[in-house]
């Protein structure tokens, strides 16, 4: 069975006065129906730009998708006109944005906003749309959905607003749901509620979900597969258990190592250095300046994606050597 969504070599650049920001560079991944894929990586590594590229919402100027394909079924979304994309957005791919307050309109009630989003995508009467909106509020576990229907966004807590955003995204049973940091602004208990909800809805609707986060801890409970990005590129991809049990890329290893863990008293392991600029990219591996395993070759050549076993991908010379040393098949 072919995947629900196939992203091949996606490349998105931002043409700014300071120079060209290579926000997404040759990114490829597949998403199956019924699967939650986590896209993780540090601030500014291109996660949101990836999401906006899939949605056809890259801000232009300064941004432009300069290469690649985004295949949904047999259509390449990057070849569609804006008019055609409008029909895809919401119906087939929907997105929950990071900051719910900026994406909800403060002067309309949450109910009316969901009704609007149902009406733009479906040929139904206002009354039917209203019923559907109440249904959706209930679906995302908003207590007293009929009462909440007439509330303005500022009357809702952060967690409820985020759930309203999810309700709007689900208005038309999308096949793919992209959630960009859906819980970053929320408290831990509310974060747990929203993540649980996403997990349940994913199962109920059989959607493919792309969950974007900078926090590996969030990933463990909800993701099936993980794509780790660094400076616009995919540096590692693996099933969630493998990422945590045996991370291959030094950046993934560093990320996991730098998280405080219960029972470990000693100093945290640091990743030295700073987050790289996406404008003046050095040749070679972009993690090399911070990497303890960097060799001369890493500073000259960009490592390709090597496939390891049947489910893992890593872009790192040192990791390739280590894996080959363990007698596993490496396919570059």
């Amino acid at each position, binding site marked *: 069975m072919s995947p629900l969504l196939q992203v091949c070599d996606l490349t998105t650049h931002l043409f700014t006065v300071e120079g060209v920001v290579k926000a997404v560079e040759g990114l490829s991944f597949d998403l199956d129906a019924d699967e939650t894929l986590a896209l993780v990586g*540090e*601030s500014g590594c291109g996660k949101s730009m990836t999401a906006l590229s899939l949605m056809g919402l890259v801000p232009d100027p300064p941004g432009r998708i300069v290469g690649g394909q985004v295949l949904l079924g047999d259509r390449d979304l990057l070849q569609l006109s804006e008019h055609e994309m409008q029909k895809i957005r919401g119906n087939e791919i929907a997105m929950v944005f990071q900051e719910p307050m900026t994406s909800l309109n403060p002067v309309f009630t949450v109910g009316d906003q969901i009704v609007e989003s149902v009406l733009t995508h479906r040929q139904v009467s206002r009354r039917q749309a209203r019923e559907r909106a109440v249904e959706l509020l209930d679906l995302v576990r908003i*207590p007293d959905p009929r009462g909440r229907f007439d509330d303005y966004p500022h009357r809702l*807590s*952060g*967690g*409820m607003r985020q759930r309203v955003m999810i309700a709007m995204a689900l208005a038309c049973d999308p096949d793919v749901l992209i959630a960009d940091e859906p819980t970053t602004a929320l*408290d*831990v*208990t*509310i*974060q*747990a*509620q929203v993540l*649980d909800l996403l997990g349940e809805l994913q199962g109920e609707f059989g959607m493919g979900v792309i969950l974007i986060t*900078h*926090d*590996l*801890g*969030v990933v*463990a*409970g909800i*993701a099936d597969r993980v794509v780790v990005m660094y400076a616009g590129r995919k540096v590692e991809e693996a099933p*969630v*258990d493998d990422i*945590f049990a045996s991370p291959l890329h030094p*950046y993934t290893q*560093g*990320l*996991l190592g*730098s*998280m*405080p*863990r*219960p029972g*470990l008293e000693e*100093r*945290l*392991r*640091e*990743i*030295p250095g*700073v*987050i790289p600029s996406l404008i003046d990219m050095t040749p070679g591996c972009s993690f090399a300046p911070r990497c303890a395993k960097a060799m001369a070759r890493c500073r000259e050549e960009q490592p390709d994606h090597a496939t390891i076993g049947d489910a893992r991908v890593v872009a790192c010379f040192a990791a390739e050597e280590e894996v080959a040393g363990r007698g596993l098949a490496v396919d570059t």
Partner: protein
Amino acid sequence: MALLSIRDLMAHFETPRGTVYAVDGVNLDIGSGETVGLVGESGCGKSTLGKAILRLIEPNFGSIVLDSVDITHLKRRQLARHRHKVQMIFQDPYASLNPRATVGRIIEEPLMVNGWGSDRERKERVAWLLEKVGLPTDSLKRHPHEYSGGQRQRIGIARAIALNPKIVICDEAVSALDVSIRAQIINLLTDLRDELGLSYLFISHDLSVVEHIADRVCVMYLGKIVEIAERERLWAMPLHPYTQILMAAVPVLDPKIARERKKIIPRDELPSPLNPPGGCRFHTRCPYAQPKCRDEEPPLRPLQGRQSVACHLVTEQADGSIAYPTMAAEAAPKNDVRGAPA
């Protein structure tokens, strides 16, 4: 005698919509060299408590005794003589640094304001501070915007320790930093603590960071402390239902455990501090609430082992064991009597 001793502290805000009971009767001691973690949900009053200790917000009631001096009612001029003993590091390294000043100027400013040393001594001190926080010496003439978030937080830390404080209030000091940078700053904070003998009040919503850094942890809910305990003890046996829920919600770094663990998810969301529920403030979300919890406010009661809890259902038994409400049977020590219905 504790270095910092807070009694019955209240800080309320009058707003057009009514009184916000942001901090509503807090007792807390911090010892010399001790790190106390302060956790709780957004809006529960953590920052207000921190600012009230510094008297950036005037408390409405209660007392703050710092290094044996009651500073609660000191006039501004007298307060200035004690101010240097407590400093604060804020969450947002962008907003808290003057963008027009040079880094050298930013770090030197508290020294100048307090008439510390001669011009030359101050310059030497600034150079020493830069080195301590791991910033390159050519930083003096540069501006904050030339630095990344983590480096900016280093500037904020250098400024906070410039006057040799005894206690530093870190308000979400690492929360805005990227995971890969966060460890650097946490290590810097622990190094400075060990080297300079600092005490920290470490405010954070990230329990795993607090577990790493704190000796003792306070859990706050709607303006009140609901549980205080030594770190190991709190993690081994969280007694208050809210603490249990908070801990169960923390993401774990192991997918197998994460998938299997039973989550206790609260029924609803944080009520407003404008109109806190009567009785136990947690009763609207508490899975164990009894009629009594609605009517009567549980006091924060000390138990053995330096653990204090404010919950009607937590009781010390005659044999010294503790009865407390819990859902996870295996989490409770064997000798404990579990009194509450699930």
